[in-house]
């Protein structure tokens, strides 16, 4: 079954602390993994994708196929990072290239 699991509903850290948002997936083929972010009252927007191995706003995520994980990390959290974060996967096997989302993790960065 195709599934994305984000075990933490809420993650609260202090400004300047490292942050890691966990994501594990279940997929039979070779998916593309994404992290989307949703700031308060705004649309879902792409944060980063595994295939480009980029760093956006200081966030990185490495695809670990052995552990089927795609954890999102940032060494020093900022208050403006407070948002809802969704891990997502997509691949031809999901049918119509639909995106499958995890339940999301709300990150709260305290001053």
């Amino acid at each position, binding site marked *: 079954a195709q599934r994305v699991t984000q075990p933490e509903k809420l993650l609260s850290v202090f400004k300047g602390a490292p942050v890691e948002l966990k994501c594990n997936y279940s997929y039979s083929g070779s998916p*593309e993994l*994404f992290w*989307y972010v949703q700031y308060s009252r*705004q*649309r*879902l*927007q*792409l944060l980063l*994708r595994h*295939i*480009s191995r980029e760093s956006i706003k200081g966030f990185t995520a490495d695809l670990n196929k052995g552990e089927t994980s795609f954890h999102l990390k940032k060494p020093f959290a900022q208050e403006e990072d407070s948002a809802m974060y*969704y891990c997502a996967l*997509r691949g031809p096997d999901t*049918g*119509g*290239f*639909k*995106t*499958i*989302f*995890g*339940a*999301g993790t709300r990150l709260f960065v305290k001053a």
Partner: protein
Amino acid sequence: EPEVTQTPSHQVTQMGQEVILRCVPISNHLYFYWYRQILGQKVEFLVSFYNNEISEKSEIFDDQFSVERPDGSNFTLKIRSTKLEDSAMYFCASSVNRVGTEAFFGQGTRLTVV
């Protein structure tokens, strides 16, 4: 930067009424989607649409739902007879579906069924 746009931003309707949610995908995209998010829950896939037909739908997308691309720009979701449990945020998305590309999402329509 091109965006997916959705109208209206908020729709209140009485139970049993029909609603149409509208979306304008990004112009060169070929794949279109509807998702919904019930308050406090995850973003759920409803339907994907390509080449003027549904390519996949979830079990949520029953006979009360339909999608249409009535012209070259709009993509609509119709709910024929709304129920209280249809209250949710509905997101439209579009993509080109090349490797390394992602779906772009609209800002959502909040549907409230009373």
